């Protein structure tokens, strides 16, 4: 059985199934919800924030992820890590969310939309010159914008590999795509990032090596 099939989650999880609360349930690692949330919330929120680029939407879907995970905790068979399972739920929610035209419209006008400059401003300025700091900020902003322009699948694979540092087989499990497809999307995403990087490097006189 493929990894992706081993770590299945139900597509339609009932929101508030009253019967599931009344019956006796077997203990699962997700019963201690407070611990699970404390441990995995930053990761889920981070992934959703980078995927959706909207703080409010990321926050809402992060809570929805844990709610769904807890509601469907009986279906967690421990054949993949909790982290992988949660990211998969988050990814499904993000897909559903971004399918709506309303999201695409509000993404551009929402006050909670994340701007590339906001993220780039986080780059620490210590131990590098002001010029190198500026170059680093431009590099981060450039990649952030490039990732935004990728297709949904390319963006997901890129973020899972380079933001969440997942291995390629793990990404295949989360996305449900074959390994070869994951690699293909990843290479295309990297090609776009490389093209943007080369273009930006041509406009900058100082060598980015000074950042090191």
């Amino acid at each position, binding site marked *: 059985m493929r990894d992706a099939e081993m770590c299945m989650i139900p597509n339609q999880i009932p929101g508030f199934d009253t019967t599931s609360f009344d019956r006796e349930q077997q203990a699962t690692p997700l019963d201690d*919800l407070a611990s699970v*949330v404390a441990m995995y*919330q930053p990761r889920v929120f981070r992934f959703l924030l980078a995927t959706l680029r909207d703080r409010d939407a990321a926050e809402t879907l992060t*809570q929805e992820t844990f709610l769904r995970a807890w509601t469907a905790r009986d279906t967690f068979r421990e054949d993949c890590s909790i982290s992988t399972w949660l990211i998969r739920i988050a990814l499904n929610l993000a897909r559903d969310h971004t399918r709506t035209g309303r999201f695409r419209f509000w993404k551009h006008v929402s006050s909670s939309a994340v701007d590339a400059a906001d993220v780039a401003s986080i780059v620490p300025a210590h131990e590098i010159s002001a010029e190198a700091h500026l170059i680093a900020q431009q590099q981060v902003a450039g*990649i952030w914008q490039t990732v935004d322009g990728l297709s949904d699948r390319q963006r997901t694979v890129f973020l899972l590999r380079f933001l969440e540092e997942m291995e390629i087989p793990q990404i295949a499990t989360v996305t449900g795509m074959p390994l070869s497809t994951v690699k293909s999307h990843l*290479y295309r995403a990297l090609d776009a990032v490389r093209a943007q990087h080369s273009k930006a490097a041509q406009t900058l006189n100082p060598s980015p*090596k000074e950042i090191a």
Partner: protein
Amino acid sequence: MTPQLDSQQLAAHFDSVEGPELVGAHLTAEQFGELLAGSAPDASPQDAFVEAHLLACEQCSAELDELRQSITLFRDATRAYANEQMLHRTRWVLPTRTAHSLRSGYWAAAAAMLLIALLPMQVLYQHARPAQPVAAVSSVPDATQSDEALLEDVDRAISTSVPTPMQALADPTATASNDNFASTSTQRK
């Protein structure tokens, strides 16, 4: 990550491949992708060639380093930004609201609304009670009769659509039209 070749393997490759061939053609997009993505290494001759090329070609080597550095910066900045946003957003709620608590919440809200609706009626009732004169206790039959008479008057006044003093003004054309109708009928006759 791409496997690091030991010195013997590298020497073998440098011996087998001509120098200009190593540097002449730069790495392809796919080879860059494999190097950056760190896909599972299989120590194939192709990987060995890529390693050897990177050792020989400064341009590709520098570009790879810069790309890795940029992606690391992107990762660190995005993580730091997300952590900062999480700290500012403290309204996280654990999903402990079960169906039971939701149902009890609905009942509580309904009870509160009912209480709010009944409270003004209770207040009005309490205000109305002192209006009954205590002195009337001594003459209960008279007071009852006068009350009943008063209520009958009020009923009568309410049941009439037009107050008695205004009766004359209610339909000033009524008598006139009747008269006209009577006169026209007599004329026809």
